[in-house]
């Protein structure tokens, strides 16, 4: 089998694996199905391993890591999310949040698989060392804030159930409010630091790399706005003593803007920082 054929196979296989994973975690969460419960963790590790293979094979076949287009970024992001979750599941033994997090990985991977192209020629600019740092810190940052948002949403759902004393699946299966808030917060702090690095590296490197660089590039402005929002949320928590609901709502809103920025700005607005 040639490398390209293997890549094509893996592109189709990855969303199927994630779909399977989401199904297993969903069955285990919503129905308490026993076999799904025992099968889910092994399948998670199988998926992560195959995904790693996918990324390595892609890198070898096209001579660059899959970080140069938005759809390449998405599969790498899905991989990072799955790895981060696998780590959380091993560490905390709380496998009950898997469905929600892996759902996100599934969405990213499926979008990626639908639109990703076999790309051999990339701009020489995409081979810079600084780009590596810029992209990897951005990826880690986005992974962390994705997790932060998922835990944030779960926090809000559980908060609502406890407040209104209407207890459903969320109440029965999720860990406690404090833990969800802590996980959301930790991921947010980590994500914020990573995004700060990504932006700093970007601001140093971009003016050197692009002739048409502009500080008013939509992506730049969008990212900066998001950064400011996260900075506000974290400051509010630290100095104003905001806790619980309000801070969580802020970080969920910030994440919604991130997704918006990633899709709308990348696909529909032109600027020097577009991937194609």
């Amino acid at each position, binding site marked *: 089998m040639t490398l390209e054929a293997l890549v094509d196979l893996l592109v189709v296989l990855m969303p199927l694996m994630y779909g399977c994973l989401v199904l297993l975690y969903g069955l285990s969460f919503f129905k308490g199905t026993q076999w799904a419960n025992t099968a889910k963790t092994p399948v998670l590790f199988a998926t992560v391993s195959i995904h790693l293979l996918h990324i390595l094979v892609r890198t070898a076949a096209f001579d660059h890591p899959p970080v140069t287009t938005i759809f390449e970024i998405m599969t790498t992001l899905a991989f990072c999310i799955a790895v981060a979750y696998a780590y959380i599941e091993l560490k905390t033994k709380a496998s009950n949040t898997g469905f929600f997090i892996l759902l996100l990985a599934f969405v990213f991977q499926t979008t990626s698989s639908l639109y990703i192209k076999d790309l051999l020629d990339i701009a020489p600019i995409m081979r810079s060392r600084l780009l590596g740092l810029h992209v990897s810190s951005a990826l880690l940052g986005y992974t962390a804030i994705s997790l932060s948002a998922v835990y944030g949403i779960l926090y809000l759902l*559980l908060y609502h159930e*406890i*407040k209104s*004393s209407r*207890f459903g699946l969320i*109440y029965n299966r999720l*860990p*406690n*409010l*404090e*833990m969800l808030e*802590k996980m959301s917060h930790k991921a947010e702090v980590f994500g914020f630091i990573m995004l700060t690095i990504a932006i700093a590296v970007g601001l140093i490197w971009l003016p050197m790399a692009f002739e048409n660089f502009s500080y008013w590039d939509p992506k730049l402005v969008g990212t900066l706005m998001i950064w400011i929002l996260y900075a506000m949320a974290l400051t509010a928590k630290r100095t104003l*003593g*905001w*806790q*619980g*609901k*309000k801070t969580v709502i802020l970080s969920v809103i910030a994440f919604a803007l991130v997704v918006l920025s990633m899709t709308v700005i990348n696909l529909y607005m032109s600027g020097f920082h577009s991937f194609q």
Partner: protein
Amino acid sequence: MSSDEAREVVKRMQEQYFDECMLISTCNRTELYGIGKHGNPLDSDLKQFLIERKSGGTAVTADHFTTVVSEEAVRHLFHVVAGVDSMVIGDIQILNQVKEAFQISTELSAMGPIMNRLMQSTLHVGKRVRTETSICEGAVSISYAAVELASKIFADLSKKSVLLIGAGDTGELTLKHLIGKSVADVKIANRTRAKAEALLANLQVKGSVIDYENIVDALRTVDIVITSVNSPSYVVSPVDVQKVMKQRSNNPLFIIDIGVPRNVNPAANKVDNVFVYDLDSLKSIVDKNVDKRKAELPGVNAIVEHEVEAFFHWHNSLQVNPTIQELRESLELIRRQEVEKNINRFKPEDRELVELVTKRIVNKILHQPMTTLKHGAENGSAGTETLWRLKTLRELFGITTDEKSNDDH
């Protein structure tokens, strides 16, 4: 009955009535399980014995007892261990109490082959019910429901502090459960300071008594508040709570209001990160959990039936062979007696043939019932039926019983 008393009773019971026996004693049940020495001991003897033991005097009469035998007794024991016979459905403690009961009998060598097997099956039922059904899940008392909620709000109760305002059984019980979860600090406030001090001393836990006038102040530093004050008006207002939340940097505050009428204005629940639960909402949690547990009953019963059948499959196989043996002996006895009585009527040279023919007749008569019995016992599904057949057979043929299971309670 205390453990010592139980030991005493088991010892006496074993001496007088039973080959093997076991006594389960909890706060609301005393049950004696045994396998009689010479058939069934008389119910009335047993009952009288127990009444005298417990010096129940005239308060307890024979009418307070129920007696179940054989399959019903095993089924009852399985229901008990499954927690479906308890006052609170799905009671968790009963499994340990049953274990203890078997333990006592084992120590006193009151266990034999049948009770040992019964013990295995019983504990197996207890385990299966707890892992395969959710009959023990969800709090079914007000105080546990409150603790369960607390552990859905806070990650680690051992880092949280509790304030109890007022007195009252449910309030104290809730506090005790929380202390059981090793909360970091306990504060108690009461309009009569001495009462608070007495309670704190009684609890034997690290804590402090605070002045009743300072309770709103105390809300700043605690995480869980239990209010149980007899007061016609609200003790805590939403404005108090709002103010306090700012001072405690919005750290979540869980208020358990078990006062009747309510001690905390329900509007306090509208403040962010404050969770107010009153008696009614806690009761509705308990009711829902009880319903959920009840919905598990069919599953539990299926497990019990399955295990009863398995137990009697084993038990029957124990009984079939001796019964067949005894039946054969009894028929053989009849044959021999009749042959002896009449042997002189035959010519000497035919006598050997008579012996042979009569033996053959007995064997042929026995063949069909024996096959049916053995087959039934092996099949298990006909467990009860086999037992019933054996009983009938013994009755019809007048075989004396001394190996029959007999369980009273």
